[in-house]
């Protein structure tokens, strides 16, 4: 954020800290204006955030001064960093650089806190006159409010203190961006009374309006980072929240208009009605007077120059997505630029497509420390809860893709939510169809029950019909992990339950064995859920006659590229050859391979495990997924496998048989002392009872659905705009 060419604003400054070896408490060391030194002293006492553990952090505070009964408002920015000094007790000394900006300068030139931080933070510790700095104007397109920012803004508007929790790993710059986002949703004039800190101690009582802490102190409203908060149903915050969440509001318009509302305002009761009035005007009417167009910030001096320039010309999502995919070291500016242009459904749809096309941009995002947050920003921007009709298929495609990163996968899965929740947002016709269906089923059950009652003198059946023997049912087992022992255990367990496991037939697998997280997408696509999850580690086996480290190593086709890269990095000149598993196995049987990396449960005659690559071969988790019908058959074996671990085996089939024998050897004793597994269902009284209960419950459900308010069918209770 370079401010060259932007209007310059004046400031005063003070430096707080301790001299090296000092016995004194923290105090002001230098300042630019004697008259303001006392004000800084007061501010640092009033807005003390506690003893920080990580720096830098930023505190924002308001300050008012009086000259001849005329009150002047000021915005104060404090940047906390570590110094090289230590006090007499050997403790690190923190420096706080206080900057004091007269508010009247910002009334004609609204700026963001980030822009102020970037401009003032770049100055030397004791700036020399002239004390002015170029700060670019606030760009409304730079703001992308999430549910947490909307909640925080609504709570602040109603006069509450807000504490962001759950942001422990979020860098200071992102926290400051959040502060900017929240304040962009409020009239600019509130900045004359606004205070914020990107870090506060959870055990410090403070008066800071918007703070970040691990735990919200007593009396301060917590907002969960990335999620938001339950908005109390008080008149002000609920109203404000509802207005902000209206989806037909054009955010750049709203933010630009609010940035023009620079008359000084406070958070207290006196100004609250004025604040709401301003927001209502901005959201429900045509903006009465849009402020002068804010000057676009000049191109950044960094390597992402092109991205920023493109954004100013109104680029398409596709162009910015391409720019992000080609971003160099730091993808943040490109990602910000991309998110800043998402204003319509088609924009969001394009972003969802781009996520698929560019593998969620993982090649640029993965190296970043805040990668989870970046993924989350992308997913929440592309997949709006109200637009499921638009993104359902795109979500499925991303889940099915093998390369989709875990954080994205988790977020996408969370989008589905429990069925009963989504039911409330269904379209009316679907809900009516569902209601009628339930009622028809209820009537059918009631009829069956009545019929059974009329035939009540029939003699009770002595024995239930034997269940359909499942041995005729072929179960397709697919092993993507090339784990012969685990596969053999799965097949043996299925055989014991009367199924016929097969790995040759065509079709969707009923049991899937693979590595976590690669397998998760395939499990989701096939509607399978994990029944077993256990650790394993690949091993290097080396032919017995091989001396020294081998020159060639065979690996399976699914061997991780990152692991291969690591090995090659440490063993220059080594040749790693990928082979289909069957071919690799044959080469080992024939003794043709010098060495191979194989699953930990594999043994081969004439080969010995080597520890040479143990540090480079990561532990992986094998996941076994199955349909719900197969769970009872597999769970005992999977539980035991989890406890005992995956072992090495020369003869996987025989070992698996012995393993499963061990599990079922206790079964007869248990069965003889317990009730029969399935009670014969032959008593007509029971049938009547069950039928009646099912009919009653189903009928009740149908009745409930019918009597619910029609407005609910439109999903308007959530206050969300439906596309």
């Amino acid at each position, binding site marked *: 954020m370079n401010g060259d060419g932007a209007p310059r604003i004046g400031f005063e400054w003070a430096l707080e800290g301790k001299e090296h070896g000092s016995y*004194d*408490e923290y105090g002001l060391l230098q300042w630019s204006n004697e008259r303001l030194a006392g004000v800084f002293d007061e501010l640092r006492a*009033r807005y*003390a955030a506690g*003893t*920080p553990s990580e720096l830098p952090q930023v505190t924002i505070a308001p300050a008012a001064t009086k000259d001849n009964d005329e009150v002047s408002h000021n915005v104060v920015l404090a940047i906390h960093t570590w110094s090289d000094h230590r006090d007499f007790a050997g*403790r690190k000394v923190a420096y706080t650089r206080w900057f004091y900006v007269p508010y009247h300068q910002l009334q004609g030139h609204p700026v963001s806190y980030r822009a102020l931080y970037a401009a003032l933070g770049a100055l030397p510790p004791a700036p020399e006159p002239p004390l002015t700095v170029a700060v670019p104007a606030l760009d409304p397109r730079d703001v992308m409010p999430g549910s947490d920012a909307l909640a925080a803004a609504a709570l602040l508007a109603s006069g509450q203190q807000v504490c962001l929790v759950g942001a422990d790993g979020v860098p200071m710059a992102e926290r400051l961006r959040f502060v900017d986002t929240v304040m962009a949703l409020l009239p600019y004039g509130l900045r004359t009374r606004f205070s914020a800190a990107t870090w506060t101690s*959870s055990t*410090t009582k403070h008066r800071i309006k918007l703070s970040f802490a691990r735990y919200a102190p007593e009396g301060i409203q917590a907002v969960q980072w990335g999620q938001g908060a339950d908005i109390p149903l008080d008149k002000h915050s609920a109203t404000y929240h509802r207005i902000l969440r209206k989806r037909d509001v054009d955010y750049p318009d709203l933010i630009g208009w609010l940035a023009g509302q620079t008359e000084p305002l406070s958070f207290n009761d006196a100004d609250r009605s004025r604040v709401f009035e301003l927001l209502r005007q901005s959201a429900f009417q045509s903006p009465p007077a849009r402020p002068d167009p804010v000057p676009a910030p000049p191109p950044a001096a960094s390597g992402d120059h092109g991205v920023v320039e493109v954004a100013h010309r109104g680029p398409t999502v596709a162009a910015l997505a391409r720019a992000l995919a080609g971003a160099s070291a730091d993808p943040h500016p490109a990602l910000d630029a991309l998110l800043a242009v998402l204003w319509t459904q088609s924009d969001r749809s394009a972003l969802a497509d781009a996520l698929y096309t560019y593998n969620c941009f993982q090649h640029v995002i993965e190296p970043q420390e805040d990668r989870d947050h970046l993924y989350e920003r992308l997913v929440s921007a592309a997949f709006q809860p109200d637009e499921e009709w638009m993104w359902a298929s795109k979500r499925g495609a991303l889940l099915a893709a093998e390369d989709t990163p875990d954080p994205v996968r988790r977020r996408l899965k969370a989008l589905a939510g429990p069925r009963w929740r989504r039911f409330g947002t269904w379209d009316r016709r679907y809900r009516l169809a569902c209601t009628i269906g339930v009622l028809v089923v209820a009537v059918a059950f009631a009829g069956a029950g009545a019929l059974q009652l009329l035939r009540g003198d029939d003699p009770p059946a002595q024995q239930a019909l034997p269940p359909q023997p499942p041995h005729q049912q072929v179960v397709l087992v697919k092993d993507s992990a090339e784990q012969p022992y685990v596969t053999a255990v799965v097949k043996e367990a299925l055989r014991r339950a009367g199924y016929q496991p097969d790995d040759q037939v065509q079709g969707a697998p009923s049991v899937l064995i693979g590595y976590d997280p690669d397998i998760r997408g395939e499990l989701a696509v096939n509607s399978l859920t994990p029944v077993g999850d256990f650790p394993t580690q690949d091993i290097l086996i080396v032919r017995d006659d091989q001396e020294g480290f081998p020159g060639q190593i065979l690996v399976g086709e699914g061997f991780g590229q990152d692991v291969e890269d690591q090995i090659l990095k440490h063993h220059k000149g080594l040749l790693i050859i990928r082979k289909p598993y069957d071919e690799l196995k044959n080469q080992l049987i024939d003794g043709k391979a010098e060495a191979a990396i194989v699953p930990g449960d594999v043994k081969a005659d004439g080969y010995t495990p080597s520890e040479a690559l143990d540090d480079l071969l990561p532990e992986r988790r094998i996941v076994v997924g199955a349909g719900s019908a197969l769970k009872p058959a597999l769970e005992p074996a999977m539980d035991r496998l989890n406890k005992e671990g995956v072992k090495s085996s020369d003869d996987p089939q025989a070992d698996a048989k012995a393993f499963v024998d061990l599990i079922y050897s206790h079964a007869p004793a248990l069965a003889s002392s317990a009730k029969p597994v399935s009670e014969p269902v032959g008593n007509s009284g029971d049938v009547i009872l069950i039928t009646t209960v099912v009919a009653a419950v189903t009928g009740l459900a149908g009745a409930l659905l019918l009597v619910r308010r029609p407005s609910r069918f439109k999903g308007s209770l959530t206050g969300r705009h439906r596309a």
Partner: protein
Amino acid sequence: MQPDPKPGRPAHDIAMWGAPGSGKTTLLAALDIALMRKDDDWRIVGSDPASSEFLIERTNALSTGKVFPEASQGLEHYHWTLYGPGERHRRRWWRRPGKPEPFEVGVGMIDAPGGLFSAGPRRLDYGPDVLDDLRERMLNDLVKSLGIVFLFDPIREFERGDAFDHLHPPLKRLTERMRDLGRLTGGRLPHHVAVCVTKFDDPRVLETAEKMHLLASEPDDPYGFPRVSHDDARDLFRQLCDLSANGNADMVLNALGRYFHPDRVRFFVTSSIGFYVHPQTKAFDWHDYQNLLPEDDDLRIRGPIHPINVVEPMLWLGRRLAAEKESPR
């Protein structure tokens, strides 16, 4: 939102009071280690997540990372509960002695930057009687507290000599405030005060005590650490006051005796990090006992932490305050 401390439990506010760098936060950080090192059944538990976190993080930093807390920059409030073995009821003629009831006392510790106890910044234009926001809050906390842990740093006093400067201004203000609230008893402040002479592990303090023949070891102490009993601690305090850089430290002792009830003041000689113990001998060695050594312009903790008299002031205050609550004056 952070849950409130468990309701219904007795809670007593105890304020830490001392000059900058006197070891207030370090003493709190060493509290859990001190309890763990004791053979009896005392435990300290956070009453809210943030207070628990302080115990976990600070204890780990001090014991494992061997890192002292940074200088405090704000008022910190911790809510903890001390659990300990109870005392058996005295036998009455009509009943047999009952089972001992476990001791449980809630303490709210207030840790303030040492600079807040000074007279205050002189730069303010508002006049001498107007306190800045943080000092005002600190004073309110002192008013609410029933117990005070006052830390006297003999090394700082020897080099700087400003303990009185960090005791007198807030003591005057506190007395005025308590008088206005009608809470002085017999013209004195009603607080119980544990006066801790800190940095006992420093050779200058230990050798002063040794010259005064005030050292003794507890018979059940496996390390044989030297200690000063609380009966002798006042004498050591007086002697250390004589070594003050500006000769004002005797006024500290006098002020404590005049502003508080003498029977509510007890002296302790403490060390948060304790003495070095060689891993092989596992015993205190007069020739090699320093656990804090200078290293590259910094200070390094050499070995495991063995706090001395860190938990005793808290337990004494906890018991006093609990007893006072049961039988209010």
